[in-house]
């Protein structure tokens, strides 16, 4: 393993070399500290109803616990980032498989778990060809394993649930992990996490303030067209500003490309949210699980990431490439 690679995987000395990493970390900490105080002041000023206040505070508690677990590994190094995303993917898939009942189809269930582990091996190895090959390979594996029980009843359902789950969670979150192979991974991943979560917050706030017309009443009755547009505008501005710092001096650092990036994040973020809402409505459950007690499962919290990660990955990849200056196949060795 070269020095460049071990520095990327485990080095913390250069963690804040990009000012935007330090800026984002401080901004996240500041948001976490200010939110309860702001909510309390609004409550005292009678601008916030008690029920809304309690909802905000209990959401805040969940985030206060989750944030260090997310940010910590990203600061510590690419290795820990990949490990974090492997854990997150496996847990999200666990929730998906238990919600849909797929976990009872032993062979397919194990295949998807192994597939997710392989995705993160390919990521850690920095082996893009294998990373890309895993979607067709795992599709074939799942179809074949689906044949083993010699039970045609429900064949399409269990195979489709397996491939869909692997694609949505394994490949979706896998793209976020793959970004850890870029030398500027900290800033890109932090920007995605912050803007995706703020996209939700913007939508929620804009919806609460101006919400009139329902967007998709059957899929997600809480969503309004006004909330969506509010999130679209605010997130695009935010991503454009953050992106200017993250991609300073590169081919992406132009207003039109940055605004496009912002629009993509906001749109795919909200579509990811709707995707999970559709899954839940189809299954007939309110939350994917109760991992976070009253706040549903991890998948309910990170649903917006599922479509954003591959979108940003390939958009940035088109202009700049991902990790092109980093040694490849660090574990399997180049052949």
């Amino acid at each position, binding site marked *: 393993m070269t020095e460049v690679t071990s520095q990327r995987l485990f080095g913390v000395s250069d963690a804040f070399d990009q000012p935007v990493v330090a800026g984002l970390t401080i901004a996240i900490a500041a948001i976490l500290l200010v939110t309860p105080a702001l909510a309390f002041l609004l409550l005292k000023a009678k601008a916030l109803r008690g029920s809304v206040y309690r909802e905000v505070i209990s959401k805040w508690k969940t985030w206060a616990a989750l944030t260090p677990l997310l940010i910590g590994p990203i600061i510590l190094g690419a290795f820990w980032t990949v490990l974090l995303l492997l854990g997150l993917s496996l847990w999200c898939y*666990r929730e998906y*498989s*238990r*919600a*849909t*009942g797929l*976990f*009872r189809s032993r062979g397919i*269930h*194990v295949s998807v*778990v192994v597939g997710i582990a392989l995705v993160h091996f390919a990521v850690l190895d920095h082996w893009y060809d294998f990373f890309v090959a895993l979607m067709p390979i795992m599709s074939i594996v799942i179809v074949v394993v689906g044949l083993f029980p010699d039970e045609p009843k429900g064949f399409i*359902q269990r195979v489709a649930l397996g491939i869909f789950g692997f694609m949505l969670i394994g490949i979706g979150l896998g793209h976020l992990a793959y970004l850890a192979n870029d030398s500027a991974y900290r800033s890109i991943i932090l920007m995605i996490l912050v803007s995706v979560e703020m996209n939700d917050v913007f939508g929620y706030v804009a919806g609460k303030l101006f919400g009139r017309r329902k967007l998709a009443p059957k899929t997600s009755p809480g969503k309004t067209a006004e909330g969506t547009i509010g999130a679209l505008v605010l997130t695009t501005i935010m991503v454009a500003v953050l992106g200017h710092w993250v991609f300073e001096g590169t081919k992406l650092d132009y207003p039109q490309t940055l605004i496009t990036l912002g629009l993509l994040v906001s749109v795919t973020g909200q579509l990811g949210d709707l995707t999970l809402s559709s899954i839940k409505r*189809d*299954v*007939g*459950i309110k*939350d994917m*699980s*109760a*991992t*976070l*007690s009253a706040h549903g499962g991890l998948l309910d919290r990170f649903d917006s990431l599922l479509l954003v990660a591959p979108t940003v990955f390939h958009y940035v990849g088109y202009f700049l490439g991902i990790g092109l200056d980093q040694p490849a196949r660090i574990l399997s060795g180049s052949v």
Partner: protein
Amino acid sequence: MALNDWRYKPATDIDLSPSQRWKSVRRENGLFEEMTQGLWWALVKAYLKCVHSLTVYGSKQIPRVPPFVFVANHESHLDALVLTSIVPHEVRRRVLPVAAGDTFFVSPLVAAFAAACLNALPLWRRNTGYHAMLELRHRLISEPCSYILFPEGRRSRNGLMMPFKPGVGMLVAGTDVNVVPCFLEGTFEALGPQSRWPRPHPIHVRIGEPLRFQQTPNDREGWTHIARELENRIKHLTVLE
């Protein structure tokens, strides 16, 4: 609509938080529990064989398919380990020892161990009424699964068998569930309620012929009858050579 709806069947414990889930009778195992339990029972089997030279008489009587209920005398924490370990591998993942809630499911860590390794279900001794048993009865028949149950309700403090409580009857009265009477010998000496560490005393298990209580009425009288019948069967096993 061009397509019929797919029928999804979410996990039975989908709405429970991780800590609630460990303690719930509705808990449904996943890959994680199967791995921890596979490892745990391999270790327990090796331990019982090496340290207590476990011998089983009448293992042919063990049913190959759930539902069934193992009923035994209770003298030691080893009892449930012994009985679960003698069940054939392919049935074991559907065997659930019924354990005292106040001993095994109060501390979150012990509860996680009891659920993840032992696959135990809690029975709260303050609340062994009809409702609690009904929940267990429902799972036993509908899943179907198998239970390990000690109808004495607690470990015997002197090695002598105590009268059976009628709760076991509430589980099986009027059903065709096989009830297997088992007699455990040597677990009191190996790890009695008063001892802290196990001693390498040999353990024997005698397994009796399975009983069914299809015709027994599901009422107080029937439950008492079942408890007494099982108690007699196990007493009979003690004198068998």
